[in-house]
């Protein structure tokens, strides 16, 4: 085989640019830390957000690669080194996650309300019976296992898979022994990655809203990571080609990755909507509160998510020629990459803001009493209005179910009332009221309750400059590690049994402009 430029060289100029990016990221993290509230919520959420997102990209690269190997896919052989190198970032992810785990044990951050000391103790004034009921899972031990432990397992698998692949290059005569080894690591990783990723995401992201739960969440957030990984792959391949590497990777390969980018974006939308619609339809106070909070107070974040991650890739990648154009694909990949970073921002920030708010109330002594707790229980009952709903907006439909729950959940109602007994009465009144006059009453109570959370706050309502800087920092770290790994082995897996197939990969797409281009090329000769 006559392939050139098969050894990636990590240029010192690229290195300095990436180190500059990392310095910028560190600077932004420090600036965030300084100008933050007393719990450093913005700092910790930014840290968690980027850690989970970039570690997730590494994880899904491994997952995708394993799926390809297990499915006997041949087309990807020429680009598999890219995924192998991306997956190795899980090693850095381990160190990043370790900081979060130490933070949980040492109570350095208030990302997780379930981690507040005394919250599961029935004799404590801040006792929360819902969190106490979940404390068998939401505790520091499980957190350590679910994040750090499982990530270590994944990293071990990805390390072994890459090792088997790189060692294959040194094989003197063609044999399938290393290939079979890769198949074993890949096939066994699929159930490990599939099942354990749910726990990883429940612990690290979903437990920010410990009262809330969604059975769709793990699916949805893992697909989000996957799209982050795919869009990153597209951008990296185009970048490497622009440097003169991967010359045998053609627009046919890109077309196939583009199909994944398109298809999985639609799948993401399906899961996003599924999670929303099930909760909307069931109208369970403790579930709807999640979306009510986000739709009412974070509308740009909420709708922007759909615009970036569904509308853009759906409309642009629907045509088959767009998936074969490097410029268009880079553009879409950039949007989707930013879109899923935005998606994680949306998952993490509103919940963490509430957690910080709760921590503040606890420290100021405005704690929840047992009366308030039972009130919350009452308010969390689903409220199915039997009267004819007049309003025709989605938000209003949720409204009827939850203003009672919302007030209780955030405890503002309790804080505003003079005595617990009074609160109880007021809430009970609110609950009854919305049979008849749900609208006016609910609207009012809600306005009152959320004064603090409603105002715009950079870094929470929308990503600010510090968030972007932090993202660039983490991205630089990721790329630095990626290029480093990429340069440590050949770009072409020489002894891969599917290499020949990958080099002749064709999707068979017939594009008029491409045909004309080729004919012009032939005439020239």
């Amino acid at each position, binding site marked *: 085989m006559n392939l050139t430029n098969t050894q990636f060289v990590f240029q010192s100029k690229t290195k300095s640019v990436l180190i500059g990016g990392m310095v910028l990221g560190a600077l932004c993290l420090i600036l965030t830390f300084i100008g933050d509230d007393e719990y450093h919520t913005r700092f910790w959420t930014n840290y968690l957000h980027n850690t989970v997102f970039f570690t997730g990209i590494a994880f899904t690269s491994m997952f995708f690669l394993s799926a390809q190997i297990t499915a006997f896919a041949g087309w990807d052989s020429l680009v598999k080194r890219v995924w192998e190198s991306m997956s190795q970032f899980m090693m850095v992810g381990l160190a990043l996650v370790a900081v979060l785990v130490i933070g949980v044990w040492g109570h350095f951050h208030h990302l997780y309300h379930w981690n507040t000391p005394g919250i599961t103790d029935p004799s404590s004034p801040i006792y929360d019976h819902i969190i106490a009921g979940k404390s068998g899972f939401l505790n520091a031990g499980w957190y350590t296992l679910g994040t750090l432990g499982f990530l270590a397992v994944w990293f071990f698998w990805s390390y072994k898979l890459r090792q088997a692949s790189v060692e294959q290059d040194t094989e003197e005569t063609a044999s399938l022994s290393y290939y079979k080894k890769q198949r074993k690591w890949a096939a066994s990783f699929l159930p490990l990655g599939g099942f354990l990723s749910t726990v990883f995401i429940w612990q690290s992201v979903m437990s920010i809203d410990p009262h809330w739960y969604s059975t769709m969440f793990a699916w949805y957030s893992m697909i989000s990571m996957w799209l982050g990984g795919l869009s990153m792959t597209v951008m990296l391949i185009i970048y490497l080609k622009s440097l003169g590497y991967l010359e045998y990777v053609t627009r046919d390969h890109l077309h196939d990755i583009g199909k994944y980018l398109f298809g999985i974006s639609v799948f993401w939308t399906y899961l996003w909507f599924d999670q929303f619609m099930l909760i909307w339809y069931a109208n369970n106070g403790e579930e709807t509160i999640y979306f009510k909070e986000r739709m009412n107070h974070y509308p740009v974040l909420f709708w922007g998510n759909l615009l970036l991650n569904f509308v853009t890739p759906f409309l642009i990648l629907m045509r088959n020629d767009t998936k074969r154009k490097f410029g268009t694909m880079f553009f879409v990949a950039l949007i989707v990459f930013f879109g899923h970073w935005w998606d994680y921002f949306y998952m993490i920030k509103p919940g963490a803001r509430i957690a910080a708010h709760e921590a503040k109330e606890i420290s100021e002594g405005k704690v929840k009493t047992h009366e308030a707790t039972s009130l919350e229980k009452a308010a969390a009952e689903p409220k199915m209005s039997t009267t004819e*709903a007049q309003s025709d907006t989605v938000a209003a*439909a949720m409204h009827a179910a939850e203003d009672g729950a919302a007030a209780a959940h955030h405890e503002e109602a309790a804080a505003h009332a003079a005595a617990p007994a009074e609160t109880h009465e007021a809430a009970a009144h609110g609950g009854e009221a919305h049979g008849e006059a749900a609208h006016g009453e609910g609207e009012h109570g809600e306005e009152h309750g959320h004064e603090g959370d409603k105002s715009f706050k950079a870094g929470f309502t929308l990503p600010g400059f510090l968030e972007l800087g932090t993202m660039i920092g983490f991205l630089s770290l990721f790329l630095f590690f990626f290029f480093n790994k990429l340069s440590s082995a050949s770009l072409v897996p020489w002894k891969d049994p599917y290499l020949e197939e990958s080099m002749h990969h*064709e999707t068979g797409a017939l594009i*008029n402009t491409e045909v004309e281009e080729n004919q012009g090329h032939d005439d020239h000769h």
Partner: protein
Amino acid sequence: MATESKKVLYGLYNDEEDLKGAVKTANAAHLDILDVYTPFPVHGLDPILGLKESRLHYLGFIYGAIGASFGFLTMTWVFTRDWPIVFGGKPYWSVPAFIPITFEMTVLFAAWGMTITFYTICGMWPGVKAKSLDNRITDDKFCLAFDVTSATDNDVDKLKGFFSQSHAAEVNVKTLD
């Protein structure tokens, strides 16, 4: 619809590369190819034959858009004008509840629309008789066909010469009704 019978001269090749080479030679000699028949899609054959990108997908998009609007507007009309019913305390015009059906209607219209269009273009209606030149072209032979209904003997000889030059395994004539 009765079509005139057609006399076809065709050659069978054992390999798709032979066929591709033959098509190129025929193009160079300005021979008017009727069609080629292969047991599986041969990559790279379409551009050599001078086929254009299918426009079926534009219709697919239009059918899908019609399906989406039809589904959504029908439900809107039924649940707000024709027969308003309260389901679980939701508003009459419950957009999230309409989405799954809108999606299904999009898929249904796009799929059926494209299928019917495709069959219409190809004249494949129920009960239509298959016009096959040779049954082996669905198995392991690659066929290149010329229409010789109004060809002179001289032309036919020229084509036969082309087939023997391009290593056709077999050359036959068949009249399709």
